């Protein structure tokens, strides 16, 4: 299974990457996705998570073909 992980804004800068593609054998939790993508244990506070461009809470299951985005609070407008 392939999962596309993306980072934006200050998170992209601090991780030094705009994302990564994960290849896994079974569905992941949001936190597992974060850890596998970044090598960091535990999701930072205040981070927003979207799966396939829709906001999700962290209980959602990430599965094949999903695009998972992690980003800081939005500041548009």
């Amino acid at each position, binding site marked *: 299974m392939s999962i596309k992980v993306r980072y*934006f804004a*200050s998170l992209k*800068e601090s991780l030094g990457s705009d994302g990564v593609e994960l290849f896994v054998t079974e569905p992941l939790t949001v936190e597992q996705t974060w850890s596998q993508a970044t090598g960091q244990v535990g999701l930072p506070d205040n981070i927003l998570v979207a799966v396939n461009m829709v906001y999700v809470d962290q209980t959602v299951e990430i599965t094949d073909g999903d695009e998972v*985005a992690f*980003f*800081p*609070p*939005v500041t*548009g*407008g």
Partner: protein
Amino acid sequence: MRLLFSPRLLEVEVVIKLLAEAFDPFEEVKRFQEQSVGSACAVGATSIFIGTMRDFNDGDPVVSMFLEYYPGMTERQLKDIVAEAIGQWAVLNVLVVHRVGDISPGDPIVVVAVETSHRGDAFDACRFIMEALKSKAPFWKKEQLKSQKSRWVGNNSKGYAPE
């Protein structure tokens, strides 16, 4: 870049645009009104909000700004926000224009225009869209300060002058 949606949600004319270059908010609203003339004389109220880049923030002079977004998700969130407003108030036409990329002080960042028959619906829907955009639409501002430093804006404020 110029993205255009006219989904005629419930017969409502909706235009959502992301623009990478400076724009004139009044020209945008006029152009929008010209293409939605079908409802022209039913429109009794238009509420317009324009957000403009200031030359200071959090006490520091700001010389320019970069506005990052999430192509695809940003448009989708804006569409969903407008659809929610349409479900909640008696709205005739809605325009949302948002700038992305490099921005200078004085440049418009966002324009929301809501046309309705009655003023309460226009005021409420316009404000709802702005507040939802501020809290949900994936845009991020990075400020270039006069001091040469740059910083990401941490959070959108509640929208009032600090005490």
